[in-house]
């Protein structure tokens, strides 16, 4: 579904990604784990075309993503839920959701998708008239994911959805990610919460200072000595 080959990327003189290869297949949950600053978010930004790679190939199905602008990637069904939620602060919850279905092809499903979002996140239904900027971090994260789902994603890119949430909410968010996947959406998840995300993943990649150092199924990596030592404190 998504294929990344030999992706290199630099912020000015600072090289961030080195020959990254990554694949996401239909219906999978693939996670990229690694420390802060390893370049995880940068991979997602390359896919959603917020940044331009120095070299390498990015393909979604048989479409070359390097030829597209950000909004065209969204129209293909690749939706990026960014780090830090990035809720429109002066729009209500409902308006934020409506913006998620801005692409013309998704507008006909708007009412149904809003219902679906309210079923997944009942809290959002209670808060629908509230301004996005006045909600708590956990509520904003729910809204960010719900807003992403409004665009009928085939592939959902999730960047650190657990960041800054209480342990209970983290558990909740991971359950919801699993549920979204069960309903048919492929997921590429980037996380610092290594344990939880490896448990969830069909396959995973470990990223260290911009290089993929390990890959395998979630279970394999949970058992890996290096992963245990470096990320799980065992």
């Amino acid at each position: 579904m998504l294929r990344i080959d030999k992706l290199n990327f630099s912020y000015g003189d600072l090289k961030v990604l080195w020959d990254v290869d990554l694949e996401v297949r239909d219906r999978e949950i693939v996670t990229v784990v690694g420390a802060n600053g390893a370049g995880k978010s940068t991979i997602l930004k390359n896919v959603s075309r917020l940044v331009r790679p120095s070299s390498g190939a990015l393909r979604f199905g048989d479409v070359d993503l390097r030829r597209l602008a950000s909004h065209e990637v969204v129209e293909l069904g690749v939706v990026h839920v960014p780090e830090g939620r990035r809720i429109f602060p002066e729009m209500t919850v409902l308006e934020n959701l409506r913006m998620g279905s801005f692409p013309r092809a998704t507008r006909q499903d708007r009412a149904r998708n809003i219902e679906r979002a309210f079923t997944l996140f009942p809290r959002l239904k209670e808060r629908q008239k509230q301004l996005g900027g006045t909600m708590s971090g956990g509520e904003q994260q729910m809204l960010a994911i719900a807003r992403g789902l409004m665009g009928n994603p085939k592939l959902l890119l999730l960047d650190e959805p657990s960041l800054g949430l209480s342990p209970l909410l983290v558990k909740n968010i991971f359950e919801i990610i699993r549920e979204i996947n069960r309903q048919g959406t492929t997921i590429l998840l980037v996380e610092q919460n290594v344990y939880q995300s490896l448990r969830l993943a069909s396959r995973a990649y470990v990223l260290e200072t911009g290089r993929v150092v390990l890959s395998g199924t979630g279970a394999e990596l949970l058992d890996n000595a290096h992963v245990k030592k470096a990320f799980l404190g065992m």
Partner: protein
Amino acid sequence: MVAFAQSVPGAVLILGGGVPALAGTELGPRMMVFLQSVLSGVLVGGVYALIGIGLTMIFGVMRVTNFAHGELVMLGMYLTWGLFHWLRLDPFLSIVLVAPALFLWGAFLQRAFVNRVLDALPQNQILLTIGLGLVMSNGVMLAFTSDYRILTTSYSSASYDLAGISVSKPLLYAFLVTVAITVLLYGFLLRTDTGQAIRATAQDREAAQLMGINVRWTSMLAFGIGAALAGAAGALISPTYYIFPQVGSAFTLKAFVIVVLGGMGSVVGATLGGVIIGLTESLAAVYIAGGLKDLVVFVLFLALLVFKPSGLLGKTRA
């Protein structure tokens, strides 16, 4: 700066000394003068608001302050004058031609020039927009000379008498049209997908891209709408102001004050700011001195910057 010394003439003709016949009214003459100047201030302020809303929309979406904004008002005035002079088209009707023309012109300016400096340093953006303004005002001067033009309609100096308070007809019409345009604009920004996309772009440009919004397109649209509002304002005031190539600079400055006063990027703030500036000018002209009204406006502006730098409705940005 030249612009500080330059007040907008014309309005004074109709408003400044507007002390009507007061005999036989129940309210005292002082009260009548007060009400008169408040009313005049609100009417002019409405048009100012229209200019300010355009500038604040452009700033909100692009983070570029358009220092050519007054020149867009000026173009609107000349276009209206031309349509009246050659085709006898009423200035209030000509809005339906002037606003779309300025929309296209603004969208062109954004695409051809402003779009290239979106990531540039603020001082470079300012140089560009000031330059565009100079080209426009000097272009008009080449074509029409720097002579003052007056657009005199049958109702240019007519007024209604409202219980002893005189209400200038052209300013009242201008105000009513302004209210209608503002209501339509609010509806567009709040209710339509395209309008919401413009607001989304202003609130978080990158997140807007991730929603599938083409921000290059919303930017062009916002500049076009801003220019159309400036042009409409130009058309609305053409029956009451002198029309000359340099008239724009005073409006640029006024619009800038309005936008900062309301909070950079806030459409509601600009609406409020426009009315406040109109009121301040009008009251200052009556109670202090006609020549000092700009001074009062700028003192008020500086005081606001000292005590509430984010503007009346602005958010403090990190």
